[in-house]
């Protein structure tokens, strides 16, 4: 099959031409679909099913043979009419091209710091979300799962915490910047992910790149017939760990001890009579929660059309409340990526080619979620706090329901859940009663499409234009029946609420790219571009009380009877302020013989977030590289170095997410006052505070030095990066006196520093049919808040009943754990009385034996707020990943280990302000007399003059962990079997997730992040699941 493109007539040149035929092979197999082109022309052909080709070429022509995955070969035709070619596999093929934003670059000449993940890597991580894909597989990226709740996003930090404000990276999917979450992406559709880590690589995204950029490229078809594949996976999930709390006997003993320590009578006469009591975790967890996914892909390409069509469905039940429908997630994804060659004319060197393409993705997600990571009555936190003496069900359902008709009942057996003592539990309720409530349902529909055209203006000069849209709808519906959990937690009316949101983004981009080679050695590429983006949105919602009937199916605003006049009804909503971005950018890349490389980028961004005083921001960058292994003297002296490259880059990036209208004053309503008797509210309005008309973007400046090495024909590679990133102009309220009479303006006043080292290593080994690969990466990060920018140089962030937990402070990591240091427990009165300062006054005059000895950090002679100090941090020093993979005769396997070190966790799952709640087992180690414990104070129910359980290092634990994140073993059935049933390939596999975790942490999971500053604060986090799954990959 000879494919002469567009069937061009070649008659005019026929007299000077000859026909060349031959066979292209690889190994001993014919190579199908390899390209044969006449060098310097657009004349070409491709090989047929037997690897044969035929091409008419000019006399003395040079033929170029190419095929994806193989090294290009160039052969002069000479006199022979038959040229057979053996193609050599290109082992570094997958790594060869890197997406760099508005273009691609050969990996060998990349001068910036970019991590590349292939679809193979993504497949091995078995993730359902793109943010989780990055965990453990690349250096420089710290991914922390926020919780094990289905659909929960992860916190992704590229090269540390870039700012005290939003440090999330920018996501670009097929050139389109995606706002508002990227869980619409099906990881199966992804061809590659590039993480732009240094300023030089991010600079082409200018004012949005300060926290790093993640470029996602989705798949396209491969040349040849349509390929159809179907993938299926089914898994069961279970919590990988339970939190060790007291059983009923231990509980009764501890409560008695606590009362006796207060001089009160014991409460339980015979603690041993209670046995184990209720295991609340057993009751709350949804054991063997299922997870299922289906995926169908059809793809293919010929010379005119390239297509990739996929549909996927994924659903997951949560391990907490999933059985009640309270913590579930499902997603439908559809995608069509197509490219068309609209026009091609090989006869001329101008306007000779025109390609168009459109990528369309649609996703629909549905989710319900429970309150997680909260000490105030999330089901999991409640399960930890429930007394093991408390029964799950009421002793007498009927009489309980007679007294409290709105008490919750078990949906399966109808028994009433027990009512807890409101005086003991406050905002904590029977967790099963909570779970039995109807779930808030979140849904979203997202359409992302990008339509583009590219044509050659003349040889070497291309123009590309793209128009993309991102339309998102999302919303929530919820209803609450009247309920009664306890005397403190009840509601005697039902209500329903709904909210809907819509956002629309369009983006137009045009780029002009020039690429040429001079003197055979100087490769030059220049790109000039423009981008404009606009985003608008709206929201509308309402709520009302009093459902006509408590019917889950009908619950909604229509079905309520509350009236506006009684204040039952509320509506809210409106349009969001538009956000616009207008940018120009340019990039020049040059290399001499792939030895000396240089790249320079500049971007100018205008943003509607910037005021007239600073409407445009300019971000320059430059990077240099030296492929020293390509130098002849290195080749001679050290031929064992297959590749070696030294990189240096410097650049500036910005963060334009500084809020809207920060530079001017708008009017704030709601400053109301009531006049009359009785008072009637009059609407008041005032300026929203002082403005700072000079407000501008946050800016980060980064220097990166990198070294890449390859040995053994690049089967063994090393990569090393050192960087220093300084963020300046971080937004913070300016320190102005309160007597100015209004809220302080925001200023560009803070500075943050991140330094780090990143290492990656890969080794591929082929031992005949046994192929092995090994990868490892490690990241070290040192983050320091240089200048917070307010007048006192610190600010407190998260807090708990035990006091402030986190603080940001000049000279410390941001944020850090802040509290008192302890120095053991006073064993006797002598120790209390000898803990005195120089003049003999007691440092802790209220202490008694069994109380904690706090360290007088500031040597003031007493324990005060000023003695609080650094106790740790939630951002790890070290993040690392290790993978082992291989295959042998159809059998394949892959293991991914991942871990962090140099990190702490605050375990504040225990409430100290409630008595008679259950306690973690570590409390059994409390001081009970001289010599019993020198860490945990005596347990006491009631007043605690020494404030033993204030925020101190007693709450801080080592958060390091090492985890077998993924393990997969697959077997591909021999082709000779499957071909008979028209299946080209069938792979069956078993996989496991979180199979093994080594950690000293006592809580559910050492991975915790529920917000910007709350990294590492465990208030009862939803643990990640251990998942066992089976699956199949079927190709037709």
């Amino acid at each position, binding site marked *: 099959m000879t494919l002469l493109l567009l069937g061009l007539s070649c008659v005019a040149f026929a007299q000077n031409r000859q026909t060349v035929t031959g066979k292209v092979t690889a190994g001993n197999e014919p190579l199908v679909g390899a390209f044969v082109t006449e060098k310097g022309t657009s004349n070409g052909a491709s090989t047929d099913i037997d690897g044969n080709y035929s091409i008419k070429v000019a006399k003395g022509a040079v033929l170029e043979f190419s095929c994806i995955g193989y090294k290009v070969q160039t052969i002069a035709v000479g006199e022979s009419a038959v040229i057979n070619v053996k193609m050599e596999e290109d082992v570094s093929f997958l790594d060869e091209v890197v997406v760099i934003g508005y273009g691609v670059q050969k990996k060998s000449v990349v001068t910036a710091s970019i991590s590349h993940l292939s679809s193979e890597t993504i497949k091995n991580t078995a993730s359902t979300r793109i943010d989780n894909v990055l965990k453990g597989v690349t250096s420089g990226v710290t991914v922390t799962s926020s919780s094990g709740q289905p659909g929960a996003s992860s916190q992704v930090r590229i090269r540390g915490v870039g700012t005290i404000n939003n440090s999330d990276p920018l996501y670009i999917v097929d050139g389109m910047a995606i706002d508002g979450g990227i869980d619409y992406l099906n990881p199966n559709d992804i061809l590659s992910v590039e993480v732009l880590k240094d300023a030089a690589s991010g600079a082409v995204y200018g004012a949005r790149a300060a926290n790093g950029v993640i470029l996602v490229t989705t798949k396209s078809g491969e040349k040849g017939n349509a390929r159809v594949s179907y993938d299926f996976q089914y898994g069961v999930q279970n919590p990988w760990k339970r939190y060790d709390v007291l059983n009923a006997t231990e509980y009764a003993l501890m409560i008695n001890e606590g009362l006796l320590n207060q001089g009160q009578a014991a409460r339980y006469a015979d603690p041993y009579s209670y046995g184990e009591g209720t295991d609340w975790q057993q009751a709350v967890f949804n054991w063997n929660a299922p997870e299922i996914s289906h995926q169908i892909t059809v793809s293919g390409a010929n010379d005119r059309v390239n297509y990739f069509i996929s549909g996927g469905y994924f659903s997951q039940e949560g391990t907490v409340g999933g059985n009640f429908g309270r913590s579930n997630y499902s997603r439908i994804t559809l995608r069509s990526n197509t490219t068309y060659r609209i026009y091609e004319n090989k006869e001329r060197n101008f*306007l000779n080619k*025109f390609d168009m393409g459109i990528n369309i993705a649609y996703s629909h997600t549905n989710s319900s979620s429970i309150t997680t990571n909260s000490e105030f009555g999330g089901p999991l936190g409640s399960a930890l706090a429930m007394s093991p003496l408390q029964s799950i069900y009421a002793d007498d359902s009927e009489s309980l329901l007679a007294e409290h008709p709105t008490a919750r009942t078990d949906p399966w057996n109808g028994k009433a859940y027990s009512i807890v003592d409101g005086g003991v539990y406050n905002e904590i309720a029977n967790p099963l009663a909570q779970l039995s409530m109807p779930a808030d349902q979140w849904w979203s529909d997202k359409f992302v499409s990008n339509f583009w*055209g590219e044509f050659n203006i003349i040889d070497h000069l291309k*123009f590309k*234009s793209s128009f993309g849209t991102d339309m998102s709808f999302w919303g929530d519906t919820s209803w609450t029946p009247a309920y009664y959990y306890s005397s403190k937690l009840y509601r005697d009316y039902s209500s329903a609420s709904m909210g809907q949101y819509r956002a629309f983004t369009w983006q*137009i981009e045009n780029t002009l790219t020039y690429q040429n080679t001079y003197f055979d050695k100087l490769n030059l590429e220049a790109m000039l571009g*423009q981008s*404009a983006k606009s985003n608008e949105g709206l929201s509308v919602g309402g709520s009302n009380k009093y459902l006509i009937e408590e019917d889950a199916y009908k619950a909604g605003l229509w079905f309520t009877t509350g009236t506006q006049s009684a*204040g039952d009804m509320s509506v809210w909503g*409106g*349009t*969001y*302020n*538009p*956000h*616009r971005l*207008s940018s*120009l950018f340019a990039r020049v890349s040059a290399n001499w013989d792939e030895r000396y490389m240089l790249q320079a980028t500049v971007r100018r961004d*205008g*943003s*509607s977030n*910037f005021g*007239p005083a600073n409407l445009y921001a300019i971000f320059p960058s430059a990077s240099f590289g030296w492929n020293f292994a390509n130098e002849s003297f290195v080749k001679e002296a050290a031929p064992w170095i297959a590749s070696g490259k030294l990189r240096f880059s410097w650049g500036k990036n910005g963060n334009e997410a500084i809020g*809207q*209208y920060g530079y*001017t*004053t*708008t*009017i*704030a*309503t*709601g*400053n*109301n*006052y*009531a*006049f*009359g*008797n*009785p*008072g*009637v*509210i*009059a*609407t*008041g*309005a*005032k*300026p929203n505070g*002082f403005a*700072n008309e000079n407000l501008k973007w946050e800016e980060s400046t980064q220097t990166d030095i990198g070294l890449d090495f390859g040995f053994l024909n690049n089967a063994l590679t090393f990569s090393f990066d050192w960087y220093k990133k300084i963020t300046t102009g971080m937004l913070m309220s300016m*320190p102005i*006196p*309160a*007597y*100015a*009479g*209004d809220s302080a303006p925001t200023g560009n006043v803070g500075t943050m520093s991140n330094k780090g080292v990143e290492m990656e290593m890969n080794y591929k080994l082929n031992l005949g049919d046994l192929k092995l690969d090994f990868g490892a990466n490690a990241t070290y990060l040192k983050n320091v808040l240089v200048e917070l920018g307010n*007048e*006192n140089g610190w600010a407190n962030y998260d807090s708990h009943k035990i006091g402030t937990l986190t603080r940001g402070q000049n000279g410390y990591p941001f944020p850090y754990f802040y509290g008192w240091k302890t120095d053991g427990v006073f064993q006797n009165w002598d120790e209390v009385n000898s803990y005195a300062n120089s003049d003999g006054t007691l440092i802790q005059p209220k202490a008694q034996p069994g109380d904690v000895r706090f360290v007088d950090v500031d040597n003031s002679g007493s324990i005060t707020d000023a003695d609080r100090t650094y106790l740790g941090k939630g951002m790890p020093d070290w993040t690392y990943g290790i993978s082992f993979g291989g295959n042998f005769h159809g059998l394949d396997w892959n293991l991914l280990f991942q871990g962090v070190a140099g990190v702490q966790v605050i375990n504040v799952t225990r409430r100290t302000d409630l008595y008679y709640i259950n306690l973690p087992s570590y409390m059994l180690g409390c001081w009970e007399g001289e010599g019993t414990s020198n860490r945990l104070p005596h347990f006491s129910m009631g007043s605690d003059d020494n404030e033993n359980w204030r925020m101190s290092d007693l709450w801080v634990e080592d958060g390091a962990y090492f985890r077998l994140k993924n393990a997969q073993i697959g077997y591909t059935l021999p082709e000779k079997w499957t071909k008979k049933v028209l299946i080209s390939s069938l792979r069956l596999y078993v996989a496991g997730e979180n199979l093994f975790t080594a950690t000293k942490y006592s809580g559910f999971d050492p991975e915790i992040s529920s917000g910007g500053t709350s990294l590492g604060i465990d208030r009862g986090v939803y643990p990640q699941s251990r998942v066992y799954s089976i699956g199949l990959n079927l190709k037709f």
Partner: protein
Amino acid sequence: MKKIFNILVIATAALMLASCSDKWLEVESKTNILEADYYNSADRLFSGLVAAYDPLKWYDYFYQYNSLNMVSDIMADDILCGGSNDSDQPTLVKAHYYTLTPADQPNQIWTICYSGVNRANIVIAKAPSIEMDETTKALYVAEAKVLKCWYYNILWKYWGNIPYYDENLTFPYSCEQIGHDEVYAKVIATLEGVIDSDVLPMKAAIGDEGRVTQAMAKMLYAEMVMYQNDDTRYSKALGYMQDIIKSTKYSLASDFAGIWLESGEWCDESIWEINYISEGGIRDWGAPIATGGSVYPVLIGIPGVTGNDFVDGWGFSPVAKKAYDMYSANDTRRDGGILNFADYAAKTGNTYVPRWESTGYFLLKYLARKGGNHGYVASDNLNYGNNQRIYRYSETLLNAAELLLRTNGSSTDATNYLNEVRERAKVSDETATIDNIIEERHLEFVGEGKRYWDLVRTGKATTVLVAGDPAGRTASWTENKKYWPIPQSEIDKSATTLTQNNY
């Protein structure tokens, strides 16, 4: 095909040009109006005026509990601090003991007052350029000016030497601190100007209760003149008091206890109150400035009380036993203003759980009553509808009596004014002297935030406010306790332009 290319080239070039324009980046807000575009009508000026009233209702809770009556009374002799213990609300305890520090004090009063000043200044500054009815405009400006004077009056009484400005500050937000006499001079001059322009009504029309009136302005004037002991203005202040009396728009309520009920709000005796509403009240712990009720009744409420009359409260502001004992038994102000729990318990069998400094006497005037937060929406505790009474007509009478004596005016009139107040309380007549007028104020205004200032201005503070009473107060009141320390954060943020008071 070429044509298509050409069109595309031109179209994209045009797009590039268009998208580069600055105009395109100037996005008009869809959710907000710029300040520069807002103040253009009478209604909008009025909304600015409402915003200037807004901070009045923050004192009881703005992340500190600083009801103005309570904060001054705990520095005097009738009201104790209370709460769960002496570390419950340290800033209040320090005020109670005269041990305030620059860092630890009820400094939110400072912030609230300056918010009011700032907002009043906006109304005054924006009014001239607005096209609207001139009479209405003059009224709004007059109200704003009086409000500003009222806020400055609070700052002046607590801190004395303060930053003062009549036009809002701009970058770098620095303002000169002036001495207390100078503050007085500026505020009193502004007040005189407004009062003499006579644009305010003597009494608020129905539906306008809570707005500033001529009577309120005159009461504020008298309060400041008397606190300053400014004898040059006594006669003017007296004239103002007599204007109020002669207007016959105000009169004493016959039932003293009834004043403090919801039905007693804005009774004929009431000259000015801070309005709180429980119906639809959306004040909340995270939203102290939202419109609604007050937390003060719960704050001073009877801890752990049983029965159906009162709400379980937090036990702040217990009334000293000697304050209850100073009344004669037939004085309706005793049991009309103070709850003697032992008596109440004997009648009802209800109990309570004493907390720190409990005396068994509670300030009935503002106690949280069952249903006092009817119709609340947000926090149940933060939405009691009890208005804070600022000026009552009985004070007008006692001011007039005192000023008559201080200006050697008619002692008969003074005695008549005094006895009008005494007769309403069902106690026998007396001949007016300065001392017994001050004592009458003591009886009349227990818990209303008048006592401390009376003791200071009459020089009685040094003898009455002595160490040991209450027990934890180890320092006696001295002249340098008159002005609180300037808040440390303000000194820090003002680049040392503020001089600290010698507290």
